[in-house]
């Protein structure tokens, strides 16, 4: 097993696991809609990173922040329909990216390429993931209560705006890291599918978070492993693995 493969695995497992964990907080339809467009919006940033040869997560990050600010603003004026907005953001992100993205690098931008992560990138990824894990753990109860009912949360003195912001911040980091693995197109699946599968099988929160994190780790691990075996791109393989786990969970639910 080469060092590069090992680094890819470590990176993938960390990102997949934390994405799964974060995904458990993304329950309402509103929130599930967020991860997809955020991923698409990163495409111009990824294109820039590929053109000028720097870390694609670094390129993606400012665009994710932009996306979060846009979502924040749109949340304030709920008269604007979210579905139309997310569709616009989707399309714009992809369109702008392809204005200047070199076509040979399209695959990396769209579906990611975990095979070239350096040692430095892996360390930074692992540290960031751990940091995000701590934040999610700390805000988990409050976010769950906010998801259940903002009124109940406010009645308990929870500052809903502050927690929503922290939560969006975590999503931003995970999406920026995730594009390394699954590109700009598939970030929603990375966050949503493990949690959806876990939900089918869980009777309580502990099982839910444990399973979602585990499924995230397993999908990434197997996806990258199959890439090694078959040569197919890792990003899509990871998502397909995830989808398979979801199907199994659906069947087991009965």
């Amino acid at each position: 097993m080469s060092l590069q493969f090992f680094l890819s695995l470590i990176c993938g497992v960390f990102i997949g696991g934390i994405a799964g964990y974060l995904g458990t907080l993304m329950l309402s339809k509103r929130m599930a809609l967020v991860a997809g467009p955020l991923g698409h919006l990163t495409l111009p940033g990824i294109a820039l990173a590929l053109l000028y040869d720097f870390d694609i997560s670094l390129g993606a990050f400012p665009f994710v922040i932009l996306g979060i600010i846009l979502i924040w603003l749109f949340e304030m004026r709920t008269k604007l329909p979210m579905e139309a907005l997310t569709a616009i953001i989707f399309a714009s992100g992809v369109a702008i990216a392809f204005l200047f993205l070199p076509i040979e690098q399209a695959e990396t931008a769209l579906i990611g390429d975990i095979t070239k992560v350096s040692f430095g990138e892996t360390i930074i990824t692992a540290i960031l993931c751990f940091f995000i894990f701590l934040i999610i753990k700390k805000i988990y109860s409050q976010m769950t209560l906010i998801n259940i009912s903002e009124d109940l949360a406010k009645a308990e003195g929870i500052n809903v705006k502050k927690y929503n912001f922290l939560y969006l911040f975590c999503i931003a980091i995970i999406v920026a890291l995730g594009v390394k693995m699954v590109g700009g197109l598939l970030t929603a699946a990375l966050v949503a599918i493990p949690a959806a599968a876990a939900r089918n099988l869980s009777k309580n929160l502990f099982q839910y978070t444990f399973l979602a994190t585990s499924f995230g780790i397993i999908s990434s691990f197997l996806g990258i492993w199959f890439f090694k075996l078959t040569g197919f791109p890792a990003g899509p393989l990871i998502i397909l693995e995830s989808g398979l786990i979801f199907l199994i969970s659906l069947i087991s639910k009965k």
Partner: protein
Amino acid sequence: MSETILKVKNLNVELDGEGIIKDLSFEVRKGDILTILGPNGAGKTVLLKTLLGVLPCQGEIEWTKGIKIGYVPQRLPFIKDVPMSILEFFKLKGASQEEAKTLLNSVGFKEDFLNKKIGELSSGQFQRTLVVWALIRNPEVLLFDEPTTGIDIGGEETIYSLLVKLKEKSSLTILLVTHDLSVVFKFSDFVICLNKCPVCQGVPKEVLTPEILQKLYGQEVKFYEHHRH
């Protein structure tokens, strides 16, 4: 004479530019059961949320300093989306396992109920669970938004007899939103009738005349007293 624990003066609440509550003033004494009566859209839930401090308002709301308030909402539609045990739900409010057990027992549930999944509860069980939630940390006041009437939550007991039992045990003050007139007559000391502006307030027997009810509900209302044999 019981102390006053809540003073509301000239309360005005606006939502999306529309006046929902206009010039409402009333007082609540410790140990009272106050019902808030009115048709749908009259602002009853808005009133509760404003008293809780969850919605902004104009006017004065003066609770006794440091008073603990428990809130039982009408619905929690999103709670079924989360796989969560009852114990985990109570832990979201910082309840210890001990407190959870004690409170569950006081509303008639057994300890093993703690491990049940929230999504699998019947509506009656769920409503009782929400009451327990509100009772965590021993509040002095309970704000109760339209408990569904008539649901048998175990044997002869309805949510109302449960509230009466709780009140006797711990001298709770209860503010109860309802549109059920029989509840108003059977359980409450005072009633406030709300249809955007205050229509009446006082002791139910004195205040709830057919004329007032017509004004409140906008159509002719007849009240038949049912005598239990």
